[in-house]
């Protein structure tokens, strides 16, 4: 669990999100729906983003679980993705934000050394996460920014960082 071993016994029907929130006090993971639709509970299981409301805790035994609490120390420096989302104000009420950070983290990590995802690819990746405040635009810009930064820092030197798409060019003035 975020790099630390955790040992506990579980009811057979316990959901991973229940264990995280109620059992371990990791309340950064949110519950927004009953049907696996909203994505506020996304965590990473062995590096892959999953909806923790759809995972039985028992089935996660032996896996590495990463939650939003593991992205940074409490009050600590933001990760590259978090920083990019901050710069683009990719959050408003923030309820969907931890789930988005966990889902998008996989995308940003996976593209750090290769091609940056296109705008449609980013939007497709985000379809598992609902946001009612932002309409996603600032989040997409944040991912573009994060990917550009990750590529710039990649040791293999994959070329110049891609510019952040600014279809909302004039929007910066709004």
């Amino acid at each position, binding site marked *: 669990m975020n790099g630390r071993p955790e040992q506990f016994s579980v009811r057979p029907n316990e959901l991973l999100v229940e264990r995280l929130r109620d059992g371990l006090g990791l309340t950064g993971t*949110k519950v927004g729906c009953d049907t696996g639709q909203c994505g506020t509970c996304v965590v990473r299981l062995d590096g892959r983003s999953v909806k923790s409301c759809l995972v039985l805790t028992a089935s996660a035994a032996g896996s590495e679980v990463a939650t939003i609490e593991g992205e940074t120390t409490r*009050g600590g420096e933001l990760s590259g993705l978090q920083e990019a989302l901050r710069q683009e104000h990719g*959050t408003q009420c923030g309820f969907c934000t931890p789930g988005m950070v966990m889902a998008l983290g996989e995308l940003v990590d996976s593209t750090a050394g290769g091609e940056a995802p296109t705008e449609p690819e980013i939007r497709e990746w*985000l379809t598992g996460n609902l946001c009612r405040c932002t309409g996603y635009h600032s989040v997409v810009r944040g991912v573009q920014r994060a990917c550009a930064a990750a590529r710039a820092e990649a040791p293999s030197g994959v070329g110049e960082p891609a510019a952040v798409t600014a279809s909302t060019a004039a929007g910066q*003035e709004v």
Partner: protein
Amino acid sequence: MTTVTGEAPATGNGVLGQPLDSREDPQLLRGEATYVADIDLPGTAHMAILGSPVAHAKILSIETKAAEQLPGVLKVATAADFTDVMPLPCIWIPGGVESHFPPHPYGLPGARPVLTGDTVRHVGDPIAVVVAETPRQATAALAAIAVEYEPLPVVTRADEALAEGAPQLHEAVPGNLNAYWTCGDKDRTDAAIAEAEVTVELDLVNQRTINSPIEPRGAVGDYNAATGEYTLYASTQGPHNHRFLLSALVLGIPFNKLRVIAPTVGGSFGTKGYLYPDMALVLLLSKALGRPVKWVDTRTGLMNSTVQGRDHRQHVTLAGTRDGRITAVRCTSYANLGAYPSTIGPGVATALMGRSISGMYDIDAAFCEVYAAFTNTVSLGAQRGSGRAEAAFLMERLVDRYASEIGMDPAAVRRKNLVPKEKFPYDNGLGWTYDSGNYQLNFDKAIELSGYADMPARKAEARTRGKRLGVGLATYVAICGVGPSTRMSQEGMLGGTWESANIRVHPTGEVTVIVGSASTGQSHGTVFAQVAADELGIDPDTVQVLEGDTQKAPYGQGTYGSRSYSMAAPAVALTARKIKSKLIRAGAVFLGVPEDKVVYEGGRVYEEGNEQNTKTFAELAMSMWYGWGLPAEIEPALDETTHFDPPDFNYPFGTHVAVVEIDELTGETEVVSYTAVDDAGHIGNPKIVLGQIEGSITHGLGQALMEAAVYDEQGLLVSADLTTYALPRAADVPFFTLDKTVTPSPHNPLGAKGAGEIATVPPAAAVVNAVVDALSDLGVQHIDMPLTPEKVWRRLRGEAQ
């Protein structure tokens, strides 16, 4: 490029208007913010609510014994346990309409009981509650409560509820009619329509939609037996408002015995400003059990209990000349209030909609009548852009229909009828007086930015790809800045609608701003700090902002109707000016010069012509805190409060252009570009407002394309989760092209107009106009929302609506 038409407000250090990063964001991005569900008080018990599974029935019996004996169950309660609790009040009774419900001691009518004991009126109507040691135990015990129902006939549509022989919801409300409400001049409008060269008519359904904040609601009640005080933690847009309604009007306890705290709130868009039974229940049960009681809703629970939006069935008429001059508009609307009048639902369905129907146009005759009816559905309430979106939809559909009828370009018709800028302030004849505007400038900018002139070529090109391209325009005026208390009382609002701010300057020069408003994701902490910092000429990082706790904050109505920046922020600015004024008076003492020689600038005072004789803000703060040497007429310390009640509302406006492509084979509608030019006056933080504009447009696109609360014949909400209720996802929207014009409001010292939700107002109209444009050669004159692929596909194949 931004076009400013008006004087900029006097600014201090230029911090206001800058796109500062939101100071709230880092905590949210780390998942460290505390929402209601994250609150874990020692000894907390958990509440679950049994909602009615049927839409309309008499309750013959409720048997709770089996549930009481289940493991972990602490209490099962029904209406019989709360006979001394008053029903939830409705505080917006549209002007001239009498309430049919029994009055509260404070003169307000109440209709919805905290638990229903005799008759259920919609699926989800709360009947009983269980409190248990764990949430799972509480939920499990609900199934053991046996309720015997005698079914009653069901009605879910407003027009059908008003028909002869319709099922009756409330004994006190014959014919289910809560309000017949009108505005404008009926005779003049009827005459203008009768005499008109051209008239067009439409029957419109503005479908019911569900706001769907991503955080479901929640509440924690904590009663302190030693002091007799209650604390409520709730996902609320207006903690002060809820304190007032709950203490005096529902629980019958002294105002100062209830503290309401809004923690971080996960979006609202209108729905969390309402008083719900659960808020009272957690407090009552906490007192009964001597433990904190917590309740967190589920998504399906939210959809069956939290107020829903829109829901009008309308017959609308527009009259005009053959050369494009609009002479009259008339609307007859059947509004669905749901099963009970919500806190302000009746006002949303009437005044907020009806007084806006003429939009940005200079029309000689206008009239709107609303029949607001009760049905077996969830109560109606506000929803992002509420009322104004419904108004813009009917008007903008009519204008397109009219343009088509007279064979004129829709843009040309609009341009011809915009209220000219020299006519402001403009009385729209429906009850609103628009404060300021330059509609031509705004409109022209949107037309140019959208590439409107290129659309014919783009349509032809799309056809080569098997797509039908359509372009749709929509303009709007949105009443914001609710508001002037006297004016709102004339609208039937039972309560003051002012906002207040308190500023305390600490001895070390740091500042605390405390406001009555409460954020549901609008970065108040950032923006209010900018306002205070700008006025005082200090670093915004030294300004702390507090809100959301009634024990700490001065009174205020809260965040709704895009009012925080044009109501609470002016209160902050005016309070800062009081501080500044006091510092000028005290500065005269400290500098040893007459008051008229003291200059306040850049966060310091100095002697005019002698800048060496100066004191910084921090030095002044310390001196004022010590209070040494101050004359009797100057009190020590810097602590000021302002209650801001503006002279009138403010009226943001704008023009949106949607371009859609419809796939000939599938009927799928894709929004391929969207241009919006909005005017919200002077903006405090453009980065934060940008996010609100983008989110608002996406919300409006949701109504146009996919969202609908669907009730079946039995009154079951079929779309009661996120697999059956479609919300826009990231791949459903393109980047938008956005710009603004700036026409300051004269009604507040910041020249601000509402911004947060205004861009939700026109998108539905723009998109439907675009789709109708794309299908116009098939003879399609209107198509009801949501524009699902199937619906469009059928129209492509010539089927009638």
